[in-house]
């Protein structure tokens, strides 16, 4: 039996303005894996995340963390938020302090840790995200990419079991996007379950262990990247595109340049090696 | 002799905080063409744009519009801004009116046009951007993609000769990004010179007639997309990546699947056809 760290069962949610954001959504996040949640703008990804750490309470359905239903009492909510951290899309609406150090110390302090422990965690989170040299800079002088790193450190300092990141690479240029993904790889290797949402199919395809496709408030497809992205129909319904690696691979197979049944290449090097082998 | 609608000669600009954003930048925008300006975050693209419609005044160097030096008097600035419209990157910080209609009518009304003309232009701009049904909606209730369209309509309603768009597809999902580019194609076909900035190389490669590569406040490369993107060194210095079409093409040529000297494919169909021919 697979081990799921977070589960959503028949989650429905309607915003006060009447927008039905989630419609009986079901998903199970495998523990310790790198999960990508794909969907077009407005598919319900952000709303789903707000449910996963208890900010929103579902109109119907349940959220399970470590196999147990989430209760919405004060104490159990704090417990959930300690373990499931969200990095929001817009860093300017997550950063509340002008000082990077103060900012990162906020989460761990809320956990009721001793001052010394908090200081240790802040240092550690800054090192992990490579922002040690920003310590003395105010958040309003940081670039977009730097702010993004600070918001990730915010959450890392709480040492959550699950790190959720909403559209982490939007607005980043290729170089910074790559660095951010490497950071997530490291976090994942340290045993944290990393979930990120994106509509960048190439990113999701190369990075994720497991992919969910969300469309119109529902999960309409899931599986390993090669399986999910081979399903033309699914991709079309979700208003997404095929990753170019898959596209090229299909083309090469169709032309007979590559043998069918080879494993799908997960990155440029894979593709290159496949072609060399041929 | 080529016909240039906008020219920047040795443009230098330093922000009050000391950041030198432009360093003797030179570029000439060909009239009526689709121009892409590529560069990583912080390369100086946005600062350049603010010079092209006179919001910023260069510390040294000149901007030419239609072959004439831009004067920084009140009247000539207004004239320039009427003809060179900018759609800014973040629609959220740009929209300021209560309703979509009011927002789009802002520019034409300020131009002092008769109410009837304004109405006509607003209708036309809404039709062109496909947002007729949003007419009475409050701007802050729109989705990200819709907001983006409203900001484009904002500028179209002023009927500029040049439309500049800063990172038009950032944060848009593949479907909406495609629609936006189609919109730019239409605008361009109607005789407007369209300039856009991006760090999405795939987009720039497929869409643009002419490409400038900006890095650290300077233009470090320019030319037709196939020429610019074949220059590995240039792409690396600019912290960009190669468009995957070029990458795949190179790979195929290297492996002997495609003949050298073929024209570079500009989109998926081109590549497909090339391979069929072989």
């Amino acid at each position, binding site marked *: 039996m697979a081990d799921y760290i977070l589960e959503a069962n028949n989650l429905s949610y309607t915003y006060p303005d009447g927008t039905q954001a989630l419609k009986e959504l079901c998903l199970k996040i495998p523990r310790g894996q790198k999960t990508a949640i794909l969907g077009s703008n407005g598919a319900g990804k952000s709303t789903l995340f707000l449910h996963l750490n208890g900010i929103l309470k579902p109109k119907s359905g349940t959220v399970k963390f470590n196999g147990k239903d989430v209760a919405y009492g004060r104490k159990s909510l704090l417990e959930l938020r300690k373990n499931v951290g969200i990095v929001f899309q817009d860093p300017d609406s997550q950063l509340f302090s002008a000082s990077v150090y103060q900012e990162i110390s906020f989460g761990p302090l809320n956990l009721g840790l001793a001052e010394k422990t908090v200081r240790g965690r802040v240092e550690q989170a800054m090192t992990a995200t490579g922002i040690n040299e920003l310590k003395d800079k105010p958040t309003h002088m940081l670039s977009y990419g730097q702010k993004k790193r600070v918001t990730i450190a915010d959450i890392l300092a709480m040492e959550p079991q699950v790190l959720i990141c909403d559209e982490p690479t939007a607005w980043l240029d290729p170089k910074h996007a790559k660095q951010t993904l490497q950071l997530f790889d490291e976090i994942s290797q340290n045993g944290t379950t990393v979930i990120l949402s994106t509509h960048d199919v190439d990113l999701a395809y190369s990075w994720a262990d497991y992919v969910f496709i969300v469309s119109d408030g529902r999960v309409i497809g899931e599986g390993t990247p090669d399986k999910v992205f081979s399903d033309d129909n699914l991709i079309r319904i979700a208003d997404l595109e095929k990753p170019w690696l898959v596209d090229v691979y299909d083309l090469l197979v169709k032309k007979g340049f590559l043998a069918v049944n080879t494993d799908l290449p997960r990155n440029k090097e894979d593709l290159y090696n496949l072609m060399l082998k041929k | 002799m080529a016909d240039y609608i906008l020219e920047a000669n040795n443009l230098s600009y330093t922000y009050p905080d000391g950041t030198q954003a432009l360093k003797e930048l030179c570029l000439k925008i060909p009239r009526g063409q689709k121009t892409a300006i590529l560069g990583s975050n912080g390369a100086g693209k946005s600062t350049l744009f603010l010079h092209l419609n006179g919001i910023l005044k260069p510390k040294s160097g000149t901007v030419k519009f239609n072959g004439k030096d831009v004067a920084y008097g009140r009247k000539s600035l207004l004239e320039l801004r009427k003809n060179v419209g900018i759609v800014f990157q973040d629609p959220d910080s740009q929209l300021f009116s209560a309703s979509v209609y009011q927002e789009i009518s802002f520019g034409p009304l300020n131009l002092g046009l008769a109410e009837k003309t304004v109405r006509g232009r607003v209708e036309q701009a809404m039709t062109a951007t496909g947002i007729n049904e949003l007419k009475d909606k409050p701007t*802050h209730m729109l989705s990200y993609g819709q907001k983006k369209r409203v900001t484009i309509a904002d500028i179209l309603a002023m009927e500029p000769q040049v439309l500049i768009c800063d990172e038009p597809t950032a944060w848009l999902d593949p479907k909406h990004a495609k629609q936006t580019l189609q919109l730019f194609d239409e605008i361009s076909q109607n005789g407007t010179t369209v300039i856009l900035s991006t760090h999405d190389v795939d987009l720039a490669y497929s869409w643009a007639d002419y490409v400038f590569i900006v890095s650290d406040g300077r233009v470090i490369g320019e030319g037709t997309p196939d020429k610019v993107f074949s220059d590995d060194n240039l792409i690396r210095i600019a912290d960009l990546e190669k468009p995957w079409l070029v990458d795949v093409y190179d790979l195929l040529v290297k492996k002997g699947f495609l003949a050298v000297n073929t024209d570079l494919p500009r989109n998926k169909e081109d590549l497909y056809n090339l391979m069929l021919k072989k």
Partner: protein
Amino acid sequence: MKTRKMVALTFVYILSVMLLIPQNAYAMHIMEGFLPMNWAGIWFALIIPFIFLGLRSIQKTININPSLKMLLGLAGAFAFVLSSLKIPSVTGSCSHPTGVGLGAIMFGPMTMSVLGCIILIFQAVLLAHGGITTLGANTFSMGVVGPIVSYAVFRIARKSGAPLGWSVFLAAALGDLLTYLTTSLQLALAFPDPSGGILASLIKFMGVFAVTQVPLAISEGILTVVVFNVLMNY
């Protein structure tokens, strides 16, 4: 009487042409070090109860609704940013603390005394506009008198059936004027005219400020109405 006015006006006119037109409203807050120690202390003592009451009322609301803290933080930043915008006025563009009237109507005068005090700290520290030793005096005029007047005028005007637009205009414009009257009074008390006394001094200061502040109060009133109208449409 007429000639006296003329002399005063000529004097004020020359001064304003010389000093006010090319710059912004530094004339608004009392500058660092300008007040003698005793007056600086007195005004500090006078604002402490207002700050205390303001903090207590905010804390009460936060206990029920923790999101109010973020709202007040943003509202304070909003008011600071507004004060740094240039507003078009008959005497040229002036930067100016709009938002006090608006804030008083929306959050009540007690809350505004706290926000006003913080905004004034930042105006002193970030813009060299006002000062720390004069913080008490400036908070009293801009954070206590201004908001109370705005709030009271708005309430009275609404109760007596005045249209919303006029109520907002009067609240903002009068709150503004009373702020400057208070500033003039504070200066007059600290610096009585050696021969004419406090009254003569008050007339001098009011005369100087009137040139810039009357048109500004009107501009600010109009702007607040425009803002209110737009907000109503949101």
